């Protein structure tokens, strides 16, 4: 697993401002995304819908997520309950919406934390090199031999289950794994002329890291963040499914597919559909969006996974 430094030109810092003019670079980038990667743009749009649903869940959900109604247990989908009700008479649509909120929170917080960890470790390891690099990389090697889910289960068994713990553990888990990718990018930026120029002018290390290295590894970081959002959402669902995630009655998608609900699915099969479909769509959309971003922002990562 050696990342060799590639002496080559780096992708631009900002989303490529090659379409000049007065347009804001982000607008220009979105136009380019739609033109060159329609599937990716579609995925981004789909994900955005779920994100908005999650943000507004408390407003648009027709019922409270944990509002029980024993008279309306296991109702099939109807006009008043679009997705039906579960074994406690709770409205499934409302639960799925609040579930979106929980998933998005876990996804973004964990991916955010992971990105910070990856940047710090990647910068240290890649820029300082030498013994620091050796030590950090051997640690990352060891860390990466453990399956994600296994690490999660073990750590959760120690620190207990709950939203903050899951975010923390997922953040560390993906952060340490992702530092490899940031490190690779840092090493190739480190060899650029402008870095050497700054070094020879006596700039302080922190200054160089902040103004020269970090902006140039941003494309890699953005792609990394996107892929981690999906991975974190999926991992949280898996943990909640095993009963180790955010504890009930919180309506997590994974939790809705396990536990008590499971026994009633044979009578009310619709209970098994909505959470899984949402989960699949969210992960699928963020994956294709991430793939498209990678192709546009960071040609070097193309085809890797």
């Amino acid at each position, binding site marked *: 697993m050696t990342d060799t430094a590639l002496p080559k030109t780096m992708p631009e810092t900002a989303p490529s401002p090659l379409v000049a003019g007065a347009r804001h670079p982000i607008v220009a980038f979105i136009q380019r995304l739609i033109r060159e990667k329609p599937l990716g743009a579609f995925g981004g749009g789909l994900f955005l819908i779920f994100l908005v649903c999650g943000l507004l869940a408390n407003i648009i959900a027709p019922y409270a997520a944990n509002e029980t109604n024993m008279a309306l247990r296991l109702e099939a989908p109807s006009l008043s309950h679009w997705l039906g009700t579960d074994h406690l008479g709770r409205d499934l649509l409302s639960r799925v919406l609040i579930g979106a909120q929980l998933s998005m929170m876990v996804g973004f917080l964990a991916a955010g934390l992971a990105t910070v960890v990856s940047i710090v470790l990647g910068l240290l390891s890649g820029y300082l090199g030498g013994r620091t690099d050796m030590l950090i990389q051997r640690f990352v090697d060891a860390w990466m031999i453990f399956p994600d*889910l296994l690490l999660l289960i073990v750590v959760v068994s120690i620190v207990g289950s709950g939203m903050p713990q899951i975010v923390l553990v997922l953040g560390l888990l993906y952060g340490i794994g992702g530092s490899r990718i940031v490190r690779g990018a840092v090493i190739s930026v480190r060899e650029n002329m402008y870095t050497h120029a700054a070094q020879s002018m006596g700039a302080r290390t922190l200054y160089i890291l902040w103004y020269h290295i970090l902006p140039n590894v941003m494309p890699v970081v953005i792609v990394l963040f996107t892929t981690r959002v999906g991975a974190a959402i999926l991992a949280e669902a*898996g943990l909640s499914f095993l009963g180790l995630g955010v504890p009930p009655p919180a309506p997590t998608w994974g939790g809705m*597919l396990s536990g008590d609900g499971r026994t009633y699915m*044979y009578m009310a099969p619709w209970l098994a559909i909505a*959470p899984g479909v949402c989960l699949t769509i969210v992960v699928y959309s963020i994956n294709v969006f991430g793939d498209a971003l990678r192709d546009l922002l960071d040609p070097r990562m193309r085809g890797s996974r």
Partner: protein
Amino acid sequence: MQAFIIRRVLALIPTLIFASLIVFVSMRLIPGDVIDQMMAQNDVATSADRARVEASLGLDQPMYIQYFRWVGGILRGDLGNSLWQNTPVTRQLAETLPITFELGLLALIVALTVAIPIGIYSAMRQDTAGDYIARSFSLLMLAIPSFWLGTLVMVFPSVWWRWSPPLEYTPFFENPIANLSHMIVPAILLGLALSAVTMRMTRTMMLEVLRQDYIRTARAKGLAENLVIARHALRNGLIPVVTLIGLQAPLLIGGAVILEQIFVVPGMGLLLLEAVFARDYPVISGIFLVTGVAILLINLLVDLTYGFLDPKVRY
């Protein structure tokens, strides 16, 4: 080659040391009150028992001594005793590991039989409708969580046709057919998840190879297309796919944990979950360590195979 093997094995040592530290430190993070809980759950109440439990976890010693004693135990094949069943962890692992291994192996067979033909087809018909369908399928399989697919397989056949997958485990050597008919459903689900990445990889590699000069030469000399693919393209294109097996091993084990739970396969994953809920830390740390080492060895094996398969690789 011999020098390469030696170097590659020596390179494992620092990784193993760090891995053992990760397992060790994570087990030392167990907060004190958990021991109380563990005691309550395991029906040991007196303070003498508490001291015994602490001693069995080695908590009454300085940190570094604890570590070296623990490593020493591992090197002698002693992973401690289960707090719950009071049997050696190694014995529990010996019972469950082969089952998970069988599940993984079956899943791998499923994944390769699905992914390689489709991957080759996709590459040969690049940018046709078939290629798009295959690629969309693989993207979808990456997104569908296996526990949802497992739930659907449990629920819908039962609702529609009053059939559900068998959930009773029979050892393979007792009755291979009963064993396989139980294992095959989780193996297919696990294999499908794995096939997505394998398919993408096979397609990319085949596309790469099909552009090579020697393929053009083979075609130019009038060789039938089937033979071009079978003799020239496949042999070179599939070599990198081997490495994927190593890369996918963690995914395979992670997926096995979930599917073993759904389909009641008494493998290592089920043992782990039981241990987590019983707070049986010696078992947890044993599984943790053994999995890590197993994956390390699989990757070593894959690397060595790779060097053997591809004579161009000179280390």
